Each structure stands twice: as C-alpha cells, then as structure tokens.
C-alpha cells in the first residue's frame, strides 16, 4: 500500500468526507495540503491573520484559550480553524499539537471554493458545528 493510498484511505475513514467518491478523495488528498507538526508545536495562533482550516488525520491537539483550565482536546476526524476562516477574522485561541500531529489544511482563501465544490462535506461540517452549538447551549 503506497502512502498516497494511505492518505486517500485516511480521508475516506473520516465522517467529514464519508460521502465522497474515490476520485473526489484523490483530488482532496493533495500532498501540498498535508501538514505534520511535532508535539508542542503551534498549529493555529491566536491573534494572527491568514490562518487555514485543518482536519486532523492522526494525532491529538488542544484548543488553548487564555485562563481556560481545561483545553478542549481534538482528535482524528476533528476539524478546527473554521470560525476564523469563514468569518475572515483572527483566531481567538491557540491550537497546539499534543502528540505528533498529521493534518490536512485547506488554506483560508480556498475554503469557500472547497465547500461549494463538495456540498456533502459542507453538510457534514454543519452537523458538527450544530452539535457543538447544542453542547454549548446545553
């Protein structure tokens, strides 16, 4: 099994991409969008413009907001960076790799076209964001 197959296979196992055809997954599995971070490395930086949208393929990250005792943990299949990217604002939290992290990044300026090209991904994303909202609202 080659690494490319692994990237496509990794994507196909994620809820976010589970409705897509293999050809779509191959188009998304762009090696230039593949990111690796070491443990402790900052992925998203609070207060900095120009960030992207990330989907975790492997590993763990933490959302760290100042004075927050319990950072939210992110794992395989989770995504982050959508608020700052969709609203074109600076992130309000740091996201830090808590283990070697393998992720796919859709650069901010490409996210709109990406979501319009793959509406099933947009729908899945909306479901997740709605769940988060429900959890916050109780």
């Amino acid at each position, binding site marked *: 099994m080659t690494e*490319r197959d692994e990237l496509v296979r990794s994507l196909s196992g994620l809820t976010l991409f589970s409705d897509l055809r293999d*050809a779509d997954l191959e*188009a998304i599995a762009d090696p230039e969008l593949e990111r690796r971070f070491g443990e402790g490395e900052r992925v998203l*930086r609070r*207060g900095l*413009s120009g960030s*992207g949208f990330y989907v975790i393929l492997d590993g763990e990250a933490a959302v760290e907001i100042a004075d927050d005792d319990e950072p939210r943990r992110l794992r395989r299949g989770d995504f982050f960076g959508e608020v700052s990217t969709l609203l074109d604002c600076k992130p309000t939290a740091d996201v830090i790799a808590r283990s*070697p992290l393998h992720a796919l990044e859709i650069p901010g*300026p*490409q996210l709109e076209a990406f979501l319009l090209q793959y509406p099933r991904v947009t729908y899945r994303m909306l479901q997740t964001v709605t769940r988060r909202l429900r959890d916050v609202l109780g």
Partner: protein
Amino acid sequence: MAETGHDRPFPPGDYPVVVVGSGPGGLQASYCLSRLGVDCATISQDDAPGGMFRQFPIFQRLLSWSKPDAPAEPGTREYEWYDHNSLVADEPRHQGLVPPLMDRSYIVPSRPEMEAGLAAFAEQVPVPVRYGCSWESTRRADDGRLVLATSDGEYTCRAAVFALGVTTPWFSPIPGIEDVPHYVDTRPPEEYRGRRVFVIGKRNSAFEIADGLLPWAQQVVLGSPRPVQTSVLAQATVRVRYLQPFEDHALGGGTFALDLAVDRIERVGDRWRVSGQGTTRPGAIELEVDDVIAATGFSAPLLDLEELGVRTVAQGRIPAMTPFWESSPGSGIYFAGNATQGAPGLRKHGVGAASAAVHGFRYNARVMARHLVGTHLGPKPACPTVDAPELAPYLLEEATTAPELWAQKAYLARAVYRNGDTEIVPLAAWLDDPGDGAAAVTVEMDASGDVYPAVYSSAEGNVRELLLPPHHLNDFRGPEHEAELRAAL
C-alpha cells in the same frame, strides 16, 4: 572535471560539520558555515558544482528572474531581490554572479547560464568540495555524533547538512505507471512530432513539458485529479510555464488540462490507453495516445535517514523539519536547498514560502548556518545592533529593501531584541519563542495579491500582529507608515 588524488579536499575523518551536496543549496550552506568560521567538509557524488542545474530543467530555461540592470546596484544586498538565481555572499565581488553570464534574450537564465553561475561561485569564492564522494549510509555513534559512510570512507561530525536536491523521479501509485517514462526521461521534442501525448500531472514540470512539446506534438493532454489553481498561479513565478498550454486549453486549441483521477495505464499495441474518472466534472474518461510522460514529481534521496528519526511529508517525498530546517530539535540533521520546503512556515493566506527555489533557500541556508553554530558548536554568532529610537524606521527600511523578507514572505522575519541585537529568523520560530525579542517584521501577501509589512511585537509573553497598509511603489518608509508603527510599538 573531478579533482583527483591528493588534491581532493576533506579526506574522511572528524569534522564539526559535513555538508552533502554541491548544488546551490550545498554551496550556499558550505559558504555560510565557512564564513562563520566552521571547518565544514563538503562532499558531493557529482564531479562538478551545479547540482540539478547540470541537467534540469529539461527544456533548459529557468523560471525566476535575474535582472542585469535593476533598480539597485549589482553587488549590494538590495540587488539580491532583483537577482533570484545567484548565490549570496558577504563580499560584493562574489555577489550577483549569474546576471553577467546571461545573454539577455530572456530575463530568466538558461540552464547552462545558471550552471556557469554556480560554478563561478564555487571557483571564485572558492567553495572547496570533495567531488566524486558518494554518501552511502548514516548512523549515530555512541557519543551522539553522526557518522556518514561514503565511497571514500567515514566522516564523523556534530551536525550534517543534507543538500540532496529534490530530483529523484517519483511516480504516483497508478496501476501501469511503472512502464511510463518519467519527466527526466523526456526525449528531444522533435521526437514527439505528430504524436498525441498524455502527461500525467498538472504542476510545474507537467506544464513545462506541455509548453516544450506544443510546437511539435499533434496534441498534448494533461491529467491529474486537482484543477489548475489559476488564482494562485497569477502570483507565482511558475505561471510562465503554464501560459501557452493553458491558454490553448482555455481557448479550445487542442491542448486539454483534464481534472482526472487516472485509474490505470495500459499498453495497447504501440499505443497507450489511459482510463480514469473525472473529478471536477464526474464521468469516465478514456484516451488512446502515442506517448505518456509521468510528470508526477520528485523526491529527496534520503537513503537511510528515516532510520535516524527523520520524518517525511508530501507522500514521503520531502523530509519534515523544524522551522530552522533541522529534522528534529537537537538531532544535528539539517537540510539545505530545495528540501527546505519541508518546513512550510505559517503559509498565511495559503501563500507558501519560496524554499523550493534558489532565491528562497539561499537565505534559509544563511539562517540555518547561524542556528547550527549557536546550537551545536557555540557560541552564538554575533549580531548587528540597532538603537531603540531607530526601531520603527529600521523595521520599515527592512520591509522595503530586505531581500530575505521579499523572497520569503511571511516566512523569514527581521527580529530585533531588547538589547538591540537584530537577525533574520524564521517567523514561526520567533512567534513561538520570541525570547527577549521586541519586534519582528515580515513582508506578507494576502489572497488578493496585496503586499504589505507585518510587524509582530512581543510583550509579557504575548505577540501582537500589526498589518501596515500596502504602498503603490512598495516603499513603506514614508511618514504615514512610520507614525502608525511608532504608535503601535
């Protein structure tokens, strides 16, 4: 010409640093380390300097400009921005060696002009290299030092800089591709006369082939899953490769750039059958062509480095590394040249660094050399200083004229520390650990193509970003920029 016998420098033995490679990355790293007083041994499997430019690009023309006459004086630091292909040196006489060798037919050098410029640097500086010496394997000694086994014997060192190039043919895992010639095996264009050619790939090397074959081939079809991102191309030096074939595609002139996930490639008599699925426009696609060329990319020849903990990105083709181009902190395994794209930086607004090109990685090498010395050999090399009252005009002067910041946008920064020391550093590293840093400035570009200075100020562990406005002549030294920056600092 290979140096032979006792004239060959750097016999196997113990050295503080070993540099592997004699392309632009290796020569630049070796030069920068030597200027910091490091006794580094530089070895190369080749028999002359130049690296990939001894052979590539296939169609003999580079992408990035070198302007013999420019708004800055040749030999100066400011001139470097107008000359993307020469290696950089502290001495004006060793600066800008490529432009005088160009015949001015084009603003970008030919491959032989580039090769000659690199050879001139190696000879004039000089940068001694042990040619004909192949690195074969690597291990770590009990004392933690690295041992490089070569065709000439073993080299032991505290740190090694691998400037290996990214030119080993790499094939996408498509059934049948094993019989397909790679980009590197493209024949002379006249041999494609009247033939229908399918090129696998739609990146730089694929369009270089398409551009080169247009005057000869009956038809060129390019295919890969992802569409060409014309908005990104508009601001990239590689667009010159794309212009003619993509115009041909857009106007229906016979060339096609298909968004196609290729399922398999088969021999049918003396032709090829290419089958796949459309991506942007779904549907089965089948083509019969006379030739297929795999422009599927390249990899860095890492040999056994992964056994020493080197991780990879981009489907295993490129080593992953820290912002200072070390495979992992303290490992002593550094990279120079094209492979430094393995440290992607922040990629703000999706804009990547120029680390795969000479004008980007020549600065990476200079910063890496200072970091390597400070980390592994000590003491940290001395820095120039700036007085605090001059901080704002100094940062704006750098944003306007520093070639490092223009070449490596949002990637390399001019940092100023509270004691007045100043140095060029990777932005990602400075943001994560500004230490006693007061401020850092970069040149950045957003998705609309606007270019502007970004100043990062550090106070009590927090870093604040200030984006200054663009200027119609890219000169940020005026009173408005200075007033805004002074107020923020």
